[in-house]
């Protein structure tokens, strides 16, 4: 049994089912991200754990104790909000020591842990500033220290970086992870930014429509999306509608073309599937006369410079494909050039279509 358990949580707002049966089990000291688009229920789930809201059904268990009915101020959970949550009338230090003050700790007992925390978040130089004198990033550091000061049983973060600049965002997410590992604190992190979630988490749960679509380690989520939604949401993915034509050799047909995909071996003939190919595993070459095996022939539509990598969009035979390749190689394939795109038979994944409805992630046996 995990340290933090969410068991069959339901929450309705009128006719809207914000949460429709959520189950999560998180070990002590682990970092789980709830990832999904806005309205998917991830913040609702977090607020249930914090106690700001009560579930219609289900239980929340921390360290073996059912806390579902416990008031938020007795739960010992530290929470970091999106933004502007610091008490504006208190300095950074006063904000951080607030929780200890409420717990009746004397001034002397408060000083040391508060100083240590402010140092941990790198704000020793700004302890006496008021929130409006701090940058957005610094405010979130104070908010983090404030949440940690009460030595919470679980740390809750509700999109803490969404209001910050891109650069600060990357820097701060790494620090959050560093501090989390250093303190070994069980953490629930809500975000809509898949890159962020993959970068910092032990586990990621992708939510959509009030249910968890898939839960796993970041690399599992990236390399083996279990549902079309997860495939779409995490990273960029080429998706080809196809039908299995030969389950023995692993051949599928897409737009009149036959492709070999290892993952299709053992599939029932005639089964509808979605072939998923990451842009970085698609290989582009200038088209020679004869089409290479397992390849599309098309024309370069656009090139988007992304630094070391250039994203090339190819169109042909009614299919659009995206490929990421080194900028140097992309220079040889200008817009309008005829190219062939090779589908890697090993790198491509398959998802059965149509899916079996939300709530039951369709796991592909070949992927494990």
């Amino acid at each position, binding site marked *: 049994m995990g340290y933090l358990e969410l068991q069959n949580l339901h929450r309705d707002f009128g006719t809207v089912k914000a949460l429709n049966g959520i189950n999560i089990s998180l070990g002590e000291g682990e970092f789980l991200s709830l990832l999904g688009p806005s309205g998917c229920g991830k913040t609702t789930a977090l607020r249930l754990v914090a106690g700001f809201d009560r579930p219609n059904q289900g239980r929340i268990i921390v360290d073996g104790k059912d806390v579902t009915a416990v008031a*938020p101020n007795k739960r010992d959970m530290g*929470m970091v*909000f*999106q933004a502007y*949550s610091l*008490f504006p009338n208190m300095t950074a230090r006063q904000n951080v020591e*607030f929780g200890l003050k*409420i*717990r009746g700790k004397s001034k002397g007992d408060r000083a040391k842990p508060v100083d240590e925390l402010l140092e941990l978040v790198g704000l020793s130089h700004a302890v006496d500033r008021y929130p409006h004198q701090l940058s957005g990033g610094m405010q979130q550091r104070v908010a983090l220290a404030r949440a940690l*000061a009460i030595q919470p049983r679980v740390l809750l973060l509700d999109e803490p970086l969404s209001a910050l600049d891109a650069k600060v965002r990357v820097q701060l997410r790494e620090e959050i992870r560093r501090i989390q590992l250093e303190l070994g604190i069980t953490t629930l992190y809500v975000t809509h930014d898949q890159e962020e979630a993959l970068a910092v988490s032990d586990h990621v749960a992708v939510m959509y429509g009030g249910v968890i679509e898939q839960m796993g380690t970041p690399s599992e989520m990236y390399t083996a999306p279990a549902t079309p939604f997860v495939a779409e949401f995490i990273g960029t993915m080429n998706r080809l509608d196809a039908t299995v034509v030969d389950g023995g050799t692993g051949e599928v047909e897409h737009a009149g073309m036959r492709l070999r995909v290892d993952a299709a071996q053992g599939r029932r003939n005639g089964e509808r599937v979605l072939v998923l190919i990451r842009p970085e595993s698609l290989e582009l070459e200038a088209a020679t006369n004869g089409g290479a095996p397992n390849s599309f022939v098309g024309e370069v539509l656009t090139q988007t410079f992304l630094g070391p990598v250039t994203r090339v969009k190819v169109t042909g035979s009614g299919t659009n494909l995206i490929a990421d390749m080194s900028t140097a190689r992309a220079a040889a394939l200008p817009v309008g050039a005829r190219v062939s795109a090779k589908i890697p038979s090993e790198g491509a994944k398959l998802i059965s279509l149509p899916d079996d409805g939300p709530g039951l992630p369709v796991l592909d046996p070949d992927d494990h």
Partner: protein
Amino acid sequence: MADEGRVGISTDAAPQALRPDIASGRRRLPLAWLGTVPFFAYAIAFLFVPAGAVLLGAFQDKNDNPTLANVRLLFNHPYIDAYKTSFEISIVTALIGGIVGLFIAYAAIREGTPAWVRSILTTFSGVAANFGGIPLAFAFIASLGPLGIVTVFLKNQLHFDLYGQNFAIYSKLGVEITYMYFQLPLMILVIAPAIDGLRKEWREAASNLGAKQWQFWRYVGLPVLMPSILGAMILLFGNAFAAYATAYSLSSGSVNIVPILIGAYYSGNVLDNPHLAQAMAFGMFAVLALMMLIYIPLQRRAARWAK
């Protein structure tokens, strides 16, 4: 401000025509100033000269010679009593109106109260805050006067004789109760935006960190609102202190407050010493200035975190 446009355009053909905005801006500056002359002239004629006349007149005798006699007289009976009563009415209605208004505004704005309650409250407050003077006095005489509807109801239905309890609508307490009718809505109008500024996150963060509701208000809610509360209360004080018509009509001019005393020197036949009225007007200035002297450091202290 008459012809500035035409003049400006005609000079635009000058060498600096490449940057007409700067060229015309420089040329037009004096003319633009000229455009504000009517406003300034009016303010001086009808605001500054009269205000100066009051200040000056307070220190002059009948023959316009300088004297302190008028101002000195203010410290004697009945003038000093009028200031005391005025001050007391103002401070009581500012404090109670301020606190009760705060609670009503918060009740309307807080989570869980439907949004239409707030818009109705704001509309009604806008009307009530502007409903003062003679009609207001009459409405309260109709309710709490000796034959008022509420007085009679209490007497006949609940056997409670309000006027047997030493209450009278034309007493100090009666004036205070009546003033509440515009003090409360004024407080609601002024404080509502500040209550809007209280973020949900603060309450949740406090609760999350273990604070009970009263602890949130003690350490966060009230300190954050305090600058606005103080500002609103000083406004309420000035509002009550300046009020004349309501008290005049309630008591037929018998309540001993400063504006009524000043008025008596004009509407009565006691015009022999207008300088005394001017001294009393000066005294009102002085009280308001004194209040500001107390208010400003309080405000600065309460708002030091916002600087």
